[in-house]
């Protein structure tokens, strides 16, 4: 099973997930991973990610298929939290296992750029004065546009 894509409503534990992923792909020479966490700086007390059942996980599956189609990988892991998280909690984990290092780096980088700008998540932060919806970041769109444009999974 080359693709392992999940939406998690409870804690994402990157080290445990990576250990299981590595064990599932003993033939891979290299594994690149990215873990994204809620930053503990600033005055953010909590972060909530909402999703839409009919689009979010299917869109992540399509992104995984697209990534697997672009680089020769032994395996690809995408885990994404939804719900309420606290500073320090992991939000997202992407891992790519490949025979060749460069393929694993590029695949993980590509998947992250698209998850950040292209996946069906809506984010709000709780600060001292209440909840605030987060708008898309221009940098995330710029990151995605480094890749060519036949892979828009969401507007």
């Amino acid at each position, binding site marked *: 099973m080359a693709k392992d894509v999940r939406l998690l409503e409870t804690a994402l534990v990157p080290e445990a997930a990576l250990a299981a992923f590595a064990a599932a792909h003993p033939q891979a020479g290299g594994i690149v991973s990215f873990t994204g966490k809620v930053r503990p700086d600033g005055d953010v007390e909590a972060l909530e*990610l*909402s999703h839409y059942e*009919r689009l979010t996980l299917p869109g992540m599956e399509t992104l995984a298929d697209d990534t697997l189609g672009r680089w020769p990988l032994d395996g690809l892991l995408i885990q994404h939290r939804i719900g309420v998280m606290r500073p320090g909690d992991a939000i997202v984990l992407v891992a790519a296992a490949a025979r060749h290092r460069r393929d694993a780096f590029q695949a993980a980088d590509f998947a992250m750029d698209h998850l950040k700008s292209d*996946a069906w998540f809506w*984010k*709000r932060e709780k600060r001292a004065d209440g909840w605030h*919806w*987060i708008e898309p970041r221009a940098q995330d769109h710029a990151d995605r546009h480094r890749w060519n444009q036949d892979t828009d999974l969401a507007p």
Partner: protein
Amino acid sequence: MSVTLVFLGKLADLAGAPERAVEAPLDWSSLVEALDGPLGDAVAGEKVRVAVNGTVLPEKTALFAEDGDEVALLPPVSGG
């Protein structure tokens, strides 16, 4: 005989609830009519997209939904 509207992101705040039932059939003009005030303005805004039963419409003004359909109103995504 109803269509379920699903409000995502900040549209759920504006709507006061994550879902709302409206009368079927539903097209773009009857949707805009059903959603007044800031919610209607937001949905009509160019950045909000519309999906019917999990398929995003290339052009939301082409909306047509019947009894039992689910219409999702999707503001811009804010990333993971």
